[in-house]
């Protein structure tokens, strides 16, 4: 009987997992569908662009500056061993544009805006505000999730671009101004070796990461359990899962687009 119970429990956990995966996928498909069908909610989308994009701007500037500076410092010290300081600009720019820009920007936005999103939706769920929308014949996915999805698709590439530019500048300040790498080589390296494919790779990654972060954070918040730890658990899981998926998708996209 014990073995039978174990088998039943195992089977139920498999079924629960499949059910949860299905709900996860249908949730985002629903949000994408309602984002493209009327009634459209431009004001809500603009509000979310402000929250996700504009209010993350200073944080992105700060993180990208330090990232670029570290890249400049480490890159200069490494390249100097081979007498290749002139390649610093290429190193910093390609590293940022192809990898660190999209990944770090997405991680920071997930930590800041994603967690807030999960907490807000989780709080609405636990206080029946989402049920209130449903009873008012307002589709809560269309009202709450679709504007966030569109805002994420717009904000993530823009913020990533800001990250790249500020990061390249940070690398210049440290590598060239402070450490003495040749400035003309820094800029020429970027112009010569940075291709359209590199830029497109970075933008595609930022788009995918944006969808992933919004998807996960909205899903976790929307399905927060109505208990004392419901919102905090949803927020934590949202950030952790977003972070893991950003890194996993980074690998897949790099492998595909390299």
């Amino acid at each position, binding site marked *: 009987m014990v073995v039978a119970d174990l088998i039943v429990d195992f089977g139920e956990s498999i079924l629960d997992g499949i059910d949860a995966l299905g709900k996860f996928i249908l949730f985002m498909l629903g949000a994408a569908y309602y984002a493209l069908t009327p009634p459209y909610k431009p004001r809500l989308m603009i509000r979310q662009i402000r929250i996700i994009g504009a209010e993350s701007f200073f944080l992105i500037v700060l993180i990208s500056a330090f990232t670029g500076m570290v890249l400049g410092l480490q890159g200069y010290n490494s390249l100097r061993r081979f007498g290749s300081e002139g390649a610093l600009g290429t190193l910093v720019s390609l590293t940022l544009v192809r990898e660190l820009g999209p990944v770090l920007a997405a991680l920071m936005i997930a930590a800041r805006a994603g967690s807030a999103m999960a907490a807000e939706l989780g*709080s*609405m769920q636990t*206080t*029946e*505000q989402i*049920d*209130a929308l*449903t*009873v*008012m*014949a*307002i589709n809560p996915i269309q009202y709450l999730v679709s504007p966030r999805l569109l805002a994420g698709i717009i904000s993530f590439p823009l913020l990533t671009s800001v990250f790249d530019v500020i990061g390249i500048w940070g690398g210049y300040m440290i590598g060239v101004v402070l450490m003495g790498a040749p400035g003309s080589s820094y800029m020429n390296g970027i112009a010569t070796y940075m291709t359209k494919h590199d830029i497109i790779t970075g933008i595609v990654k930022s788009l995918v990461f944006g969808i992933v972060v919004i998807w996960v954070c909205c899903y976790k918040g929307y399905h927060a359990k109505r208990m004392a730890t419901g919102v905090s658990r949803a927020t934590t899981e949202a950030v952790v899962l977003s972070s893991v998926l950003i890194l996993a998708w980074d690998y897949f996209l790099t492998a595909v687009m390299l």
Partner: protein
Amino acid sequence: MNKDGNIATNGAHGTDQNAIAVRDLRKRFGRQVVLDGVNLEVPGAMVTCIVGPSGGGKTVLLKHLNLLMRADSGSIIIDGDDVTRLSNRALNQVREKLGMLFQAGALFDSMSIFENVAFPLVEKTDLSDDEIEARVRDTLNSVGLEGVDNKFPSELSGGMQKRAALARALVHRPKILMLDEPTTGLDPARTGAIHRLIRETQQKYGLTVVMVSHDVPQVFEVCDRVAFIHRGQIRLYGTPQEVTSAHDEIFDRFLAGRAAGDGAELGAN
């Protein structure tokens, strides 16, 4: 006891004036049966209270009536529509006839009281800004809330939040108003005030009201009909006088508020 095993103490079953009719409604969550063949008729333009012990299925039944849940089987007729057979899109048309006051109000935290009450009109109607403003003010006045337009829900007392939530439920002039334990967390004075407000609102707008309540027997003062739900079935139904004089042992024990040891027999979780 009728053929379904439910004790019915009046002739409200099968009348033609019912706003809502529930037939053999069943719902389970996993292995737990919550609604076990509910039969209920809610007369139009009256206040019907659903009472019962915790875990008896009151809130789950209300969530089926306000279309937040789908039943496993059975039917629910709301204003002539069998909602158990409707698509989600068609359900939205039925929802526009309903107003709902949630237990904690469920006001939107990020909006002012005015914005909260105006919300259903802004989202679902083509009324002009002036018309919306006039309707919102009129509705807020009717629930006794003046001068709180620009305040946020967190700045109001519990009683005022309930009034604001009631205003939001009424602003689009629904036919049926549903209330989930509207007086939970309020002191006796405010409880009485909310009950009086519900009765006055029902009479003013000619509403059908369905109310889940724990405030027995105080809530009987405002009810025209009482449905006592026990272990997922309507055990008693009738006017407050009929129900309280039915001498049903389980209902009498519920009314007397026995200790937790008896709660298990009453179906409490």
